[in-house]
């Protein structure tokens, strides 16, 4: 039987008896709320966009915002976020602009990745937000290395990495946590247990009592937390960050949450799970839960909320329309950054392609 996840906020937004809200300033609470709301609205909008065929692909995080943004909120600016592919909220919290996001989704000439990657695979070194790659679990050892480097260099930063329940089955998860345990890497491993790995339920992913218990195999701390409770996620992550920073070792956090939406826009979850299950989890929605808390606490009013929604809608509209107008990158970007300098064979291949794309180039050659 599993240990109960730690929680502070009840699904109705009230504080659990004996628990109090973490010491966060009202304006900070509102910043947190705004990002959660923004994340939700961006997901809804981009999913529509994909349906309309205006972008090719999108990954949302509906239902998991608290476990993502609450954790990132516990970090300092010098800390690292090493994401899976569902952590837009963490990027937004750190200041990732909607315009940069949109350019990446369109893969246009303003995309900092030069249209090289699939939608949703953005990166921002400026924000110490890692480079998203699709293979599940691959980022986890990177976070171990970052947390180890921080320890070796005494730079005082920590690395927080996100991954799903499915990722705990990978070899990379195992080696990352084992190395981190041995080296006391300044790393926090946050597993979003959203109950599903595409069509595979987390109960079919492993026979272990919980995911948090896997920490014992690595001699590190493991905690289960209600992933839909932004206060609880913030609190346990904050504690994990403090421990990591003080050299007390890494922590594995299992955030118990639920993927309310499809795996990605390519997925149709009705083929493998009951609406009933989804409905029951909607009752635990992290956004409405936090919203109720803020209303009760008087930090938020319906008026402010309505304005906020308007503001966010405009923000999204502006970023989208601006980004959608921008054309594709120049063809040479396809050959750059393979190595730091373009080697002769890529020079040659670029020329070869130019001759095909721009017949006049071919002319000059003959």
């Amino acid at each position, binding site marked *: 039987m599993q240990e109960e996840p730690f929680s502070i906020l009840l699904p109705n937004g009230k504080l659990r008896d004996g628990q109090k809200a973490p010491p966060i300033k009202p304006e900070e609470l509102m910043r947190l709320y705004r990002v959660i709301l923004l994340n939700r609205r961006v997901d809804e909008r981009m999913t529509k966009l994909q349906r309309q065929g205006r972008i090719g*692909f999108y990954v949302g995080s509906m239902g998991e915002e608290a476990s993502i943004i609450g954790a990132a909120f516990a970090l300092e600016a010098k800390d690292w976020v090493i994401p899976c592919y569902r952590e837009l909220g963490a990027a937004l919290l750190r200041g990732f602009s909607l315009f940069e996001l949109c350019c990446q989704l369109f893969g246009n000439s303003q995309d900092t990745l030069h249209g090289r990657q*699939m939608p949703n695979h953005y990166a921002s070194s400026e924000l110490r937000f890692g480079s998203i790659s699709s*293979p599940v679990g691959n980022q986890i050892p990177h976070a171990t290395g970052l947390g180890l480097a921080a320890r070796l260099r005494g730079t005082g930063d920590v690395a927080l990495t996100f991954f799903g329940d499915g990722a705990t089955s*990978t070899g990379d998860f195992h080696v990352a946590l084992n190395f981190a345990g041995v080296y006391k890497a300044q790393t926090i491993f946050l597993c979003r247990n959203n109950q599903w*790995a595409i069509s595979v339920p987390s109960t079919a992913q492993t026979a272990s009592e919980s995911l948090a218990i896997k920490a014992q195999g690595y001699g590190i701390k493991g905690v289960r937390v209600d992933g839909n409770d932004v206060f609880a996620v913030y609190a346990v992550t904050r504690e994990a960050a403090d421990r990591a920073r003080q050299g007390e070792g890494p922590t594995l956090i299992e955030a118990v949450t639920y993927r309310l939406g499809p795996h990605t826009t*390519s997925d149709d979850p009705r083929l493998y799970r009951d609406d009933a299950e989804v409905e029951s989890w909607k009752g635990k929605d992290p956004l409405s839960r936090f919203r109720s808390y803020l209303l009760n606490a008087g930090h938020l009013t319906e008026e402010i909320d309505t304005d906020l929604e308007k503001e966010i809608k405009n923000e999204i509209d502006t970023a989208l329309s601006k980004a959608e107008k921008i054309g594709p990158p120049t063809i040479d970007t396809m050959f750059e950054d393979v190595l730091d300098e373009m080697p002769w*064979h890529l020079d040659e*291949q670029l020329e070869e392609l130019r001759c095909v794309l721009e017949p006049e180039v071919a002319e000059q050659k003959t």
Partner: protein
Amino acid sequence: MPTMNIIQAVNSALRVEMQSDDMVVILGEDVGQFGGVFRATQGLFKEFGPSRVFDTPLAENGIIGSAIGMALHGMRPVPEIQFVDFIYPAFDQIVNEAAKMRYRSGGQYTCPMVIRAPCGGGIKGGHYHSQSPEAYFIHTAGLKVVMPSNPYDAKGLLIASIRDNNPVIFLEPKQLYRAARGEVPEGEYTVELGKASRVREGTDITIVTYGASVHEALEAAKEADEEDQISTEIIDLRTLLPYDLDAILESVKKTGRVVIVHEAPKTCGFGAEISAALGERALLYLQAPILRVTGFDTPFPYTFEQEYLPNKTRVRKALRDVMDF
């Protein structure tokens, strides 16, 4: 005969073999009740049950490693790797274990299995849903490597692969899954491994290709014929290892000109081997350099996917270049 697309042909091959041989089992991520993200195993869970078709935890080395154990026990696993781009966690199990098991045990142990995986570009999949890593496996002694270009071959080659006593890497060009349709027999039949098929007859140039590129080659050949009266022969290799050198040589001795087309990156790609093998054996027949039209030596890009792929236009140019040489 019913018409099928490649997904249906693959599904039909799996069903036929599972019906005729209880030892054939399917495992992989999402292949069970859900039927696979490309629906290749759709309906098989219902028909054969959870002991013949089952989901695995998310670990490719676990999938292939346990498939090897099942094969050692006498079963014929057909593991699916959801996208071949994710096969690398299992690379060690494939290269150091499956490929060497027969050899290193003096034939005492073997692991017949077919590792199915969607490969190649065309679906805007970017770096990690578009790769064509066949050269890694062709370079690895102890494996067979297969890539069909049409539904008929897909079914016949897959059945032949399942019945084959070696580990087979079976790569399915995902952009053709639904695009390529054709007549496919309901029941069982095989397409022999190691035999190429001449999908177009011609006298001026030989195009050696496989997988999705076969279709680009066909279009380019048609244009070259209509617009420049160039007569192009096209060899669809189908099996990449062991590959059908005789079929290629026979054609090249007739045409004297060769263009090789594949999606995988150029440097050390399979095209290099074909070119080198012809250079060793047919130098005096060559009236022009052997050209390669391939993916570029970059990660597979998103926005410029069409520019990256060896499309009709690039093949056309190569055909012109070898004729004008």
